[in-house]
């Protein structure tokens, strides 16, 4: 028992928890006027947590990783890398929010605090090595997210999105919880390692049901087909900064959690869950591609795009190998950059009265009126489609490489062929922006912060990103290695 060490290991979450409580008090007394201050302090706290996570990731004395709180919580390179991604996404989503909410004077200090609550939950998710931590982290993230989805209280679509998200999310949590209780009942333990040991001599039917239920619940959180139905509606209805948040941070956290559950808890029984993951992956790729074709709303399109990308990431999980896990982390990093960038581009699409524009047809001729923004959005679209030389290709590259190395050649072949379907709708956005006559709806940008973030992410997913591969690969490989520590 070493509380000092344990607190040190959990320091990112502890910093964020204390900050969130203090900030809540500031918000309660300061009122609406304090939102600017609270936002700044939240970002500062997140940067602090980010620095701590970087230290855990890069400091050799933490290379081994360690358990805390009687095997409830684990700090290792995998958790640290995931947290870095989560914190960065959260920072991005807080920075871009004030401008969006400024119209109608709807910015409230609760927004950054709710994001912070969700972020703490996600930190717990990626560090969870016990079913209880898993559930607590997941619920903490979800509850904050439900509120965030309906943050624009006066807007019907936002309220609807929040309600829809809540009802379906609660259902998924129920499924997940049922699965967890089955697992506990049939293995007698809630610890991931304990479950892995218990599975050592086969999986009983009851535990098998547990695995299926748990994976279904997690599939909902990562919005993988067939549990994706909420995604387009929630993405469309939620305020765009919130959608940006939903598409990045919780996806990373839930995916990391899924990886940990599949590889640590169910690690010995890969054959049991592999076929589920393969089905979910291919279904997500194909449905994410086909269903997006008819979309007229860019946020809905991006929702299907995220379903599509989740499918590709899951191909890495289907391999069940270290290379696969490393590839997933690489893909997640690139995915976060692409998604963050494209949603911030969407945030910047406002008409002359400052109203947000979401119809794809209104982007017509954007390359003439806003060449920089159009070029950035085109880069993100080609990158999401995985066309070389853009960096999005690298994500697909490592994932499919891992799949081929693991012998899953038919999966890789079908998956990559289906990626062509996705290319079709990404091309559509480029076509509207570049080939069509200008509709001249979009006003010039009014936010330097947004432009800076777009530039930054666009440069990262541009071919320049390949120069980062030499630095990135040891990091993702180290994270993947940490995941397999018990194997």
């Amino acid at each position, binding site marked *: 028992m070493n509380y000092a060490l344990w607190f040190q290991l959990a320091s990112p979450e502890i910093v964020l928890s204390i900050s969130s409580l203090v900030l809540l008090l500031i918000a309660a007394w300061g009122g609406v006027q304090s939102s600017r201050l609270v936002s700044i302090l939240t970002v500062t706290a997140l940067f602090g947590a980010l620095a701590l996570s970087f230290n855990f990731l890069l400091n050799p004395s933490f290379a081994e990783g360690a358990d805390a709180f009687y095997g409830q919580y684990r700090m290792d390179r995998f958790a640290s890398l995931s947290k870095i991604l989560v914190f960065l996404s959260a920072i991005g989503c807080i920075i871009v929010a004030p401008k969006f909410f400024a119209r109608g004077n709807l910015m409230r200090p609760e927004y950054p605090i709710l994001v912070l609550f969700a972020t703490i939950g996600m930190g717990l998710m990626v560090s969870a090595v016990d079913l209880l931590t898993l559930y607590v982290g997941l619920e903490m993230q979800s509850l904050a997210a439900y509120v965030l989805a309906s943050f624009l209280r006066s807007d019907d679509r936002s309220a609807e999105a929040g309600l829809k998200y809540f009802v379906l999310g609660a259902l998924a949590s129920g499924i997940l919880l049922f699965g967890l209780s089955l697992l506990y009942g049939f293995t007698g333990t809630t610890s991931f390692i304990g479950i892995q040991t218990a599975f050592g001599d086969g999986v009983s039917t009851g535990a098998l049901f547990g695995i299926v239920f748990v994976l279904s619940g997690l599939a909902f959180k990562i919005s993988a087909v067939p549990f994706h139905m909420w995604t387009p509606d929630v993405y469309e209805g939620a305020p765009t900064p919130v959608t940006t948040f939903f598409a990045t941070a919780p996806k990373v956290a839930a995916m990391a959690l899924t990886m940990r559950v599949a590889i640590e808890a169910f690690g010995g029984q890969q054959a049991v869950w592999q076929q589920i993951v393969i089905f979910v992956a291919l279904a997500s790729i194909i449905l994410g591609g086909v269903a997006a074709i008819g979309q007229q709303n860019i946020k809905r399109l991006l929702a299907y795009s995220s379903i599509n990308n989740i499918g590709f990431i899951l191909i890495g999980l289907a391999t069940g190998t270290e290379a696969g896990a490393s590839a997933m982390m690489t893909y997640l990093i690139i995915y976060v950059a692409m998604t963050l960038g494209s949603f911030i581009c969407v945030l910047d699409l406002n008409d002359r009265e400052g109203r947000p524009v979401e119809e794809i047809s209104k982007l017509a001729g954007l*390359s*003439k009126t806003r060449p920089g923004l159009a070029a950035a959005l085109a880069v993100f679209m*080609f990158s999401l489609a995985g*066309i*070389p*030389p853009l960096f999005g*290709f690298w994500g697909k*590259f*490592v994932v*499919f*490489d891992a799949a*081929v*190395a693991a012998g899953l*050649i038919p999966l*890789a*072949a079908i998956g*990559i*062929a289906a*990626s*062509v379907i996705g*290319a*079709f709708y990404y*091309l559509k956005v*480029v*076509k509207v922006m*570049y*080939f069509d006559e200008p509709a001249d709806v979009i006003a010039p940008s009014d936010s330097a912060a947004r432009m800076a973030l777009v530039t930054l992410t666009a440069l990262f997913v541009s071919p320049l990103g*390949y*120069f980062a*591969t*030499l630095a*990135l*690969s040891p990091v993702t490989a180290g994270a993947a290695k940490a995941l397999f520590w018990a194997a």
Partner: protein
Amino acid sequence: MNELGFPILSLMLAVPMAASIACLFVGANAARWIALLATLIDFALGIVLWMHFDIGGVQWQFVEKAALFDRFSWALGIDGIALMLIMLSVFLMPICIGASWEAIQTRVGEYMAAFLLMEVLMIGVFAAQDIFLFYIFFEAGLIPMYLIIGIWGGANRIYASYKFFLFTLLGSVLMLIAMFWMVNEAGTSDIPTLMAYDFPVEAQAWLWLAFFASFAVKMPMWPVHTWLPDAHVQAPTAGSVILAGVLLKMGGYGFIRFSLPMFPEASVDYMWLVLALSMVAVVYTSLIALVQSDMKKLIAYSSVAHMAIVTVGLFAFNRQGLEGALVVMLSHGLVSGALFLCVGVIYDRLHTREIDRYGGLSINMPRYALLFLLFTMASIGLPGTSGFVGEFLSLVGVYEVSSWAAIVCTTGIILGAAYMLYLYRRVAYGVIKSDDVAAMPDLNKREIALLLPIALVVLWMGVYPESFMAPMRKDVGALEARLASVKPAGDAQVKMGKAPVLMPAAHAEEGHH
């Protein structure tokens, strides 16, 4: 470093890349000049490259290697085949820029940037020595070409740009999976090493098919050629030139660089497939070309037919066939490029590609008619022009393997003469039908400056092909040696003729007694 003491191939990539970025930020006229200057510098560098290429020396020259990326490296280097194709690219690029000088008036900076990016990617494809680097260059070409067709193309440009993009993408993605498998198996992504690696025969069939899917679309071979006529018709003139001149050659280059040396057994097993598709292509697309009323479409279909001659030559597995295929590739790159320029010249004047609208151009445009005639003859394969050398060698080569293929493909040459002469008659001969045609001025200086260099090279290649074949000879020899063990017997059984023996041996023996 290399023979020259500076990384010339990287420099040839860097110059157009830098110019491409610069073009985005300057006005129309500045962009034109920057593009012209950059392409001319690259052409000059290409000449330096050719001058210093050691014919008969080591196979891979000007090799550069830098471990810049994870899992693949910045590895460049060329052999004679790559050298010739790079020369073709850098030769055509300034001509393309010149052809767009007046024809493109909207978004000039972006247009020039896209073209310069194309040049980077084309040179990259031919110079890459890492299989993944090759793939990146190979696929990346889709984006600028998609934009070129879609933004500056004709009326139906959107459909054509989608078709081009999705067809070629679908063809290529499976190749990537095959590459992963190969690199896993061989433990290296270095192309020269992979070319010498013996992959298991049962895996070769799948790998070959995956690569074939990509190269057949790019080539394009019948029946996956349908994107080409659409893309050509809708693309701006310079886009067509680059598409026909260089992009189609990537398919042939892929066969030479990957399919044949890496999967020799599978190549022989699937020879029937390639020959059959090529035979169909030659006859079928030539017949289609005969009935076209749109000039660009006619030339596009003739490209498919010519590319089929390339594939039969490649899959003849002998020196004549391989060299012939390479010369057809070079020659077709020049001739079809020039023919598209010829169409562009009159399109700029009358804004229609309908053959029936023209007629009698030899009366009011004699210089144009002369050059057009030369390129028509080169396309037919008249001796003395570049077309003859390649087609003759290809057909001689394939005759050794399959006399049927040779016979059917030769029919295609006759049909080729038919549709090209028919085109020429309708455009250049006869009487001038309308006033607007009569008012068309002859070639101006800029247009002559574009067409004359191509005409000279076409004649040079026709009269003295040795200049172009010498750098490639050793590489073709290496490929032939690689294929020698699996080479099919063939049905023609061509043998060297024997000189008659004047005094029979038995008789001579008798005489001693």
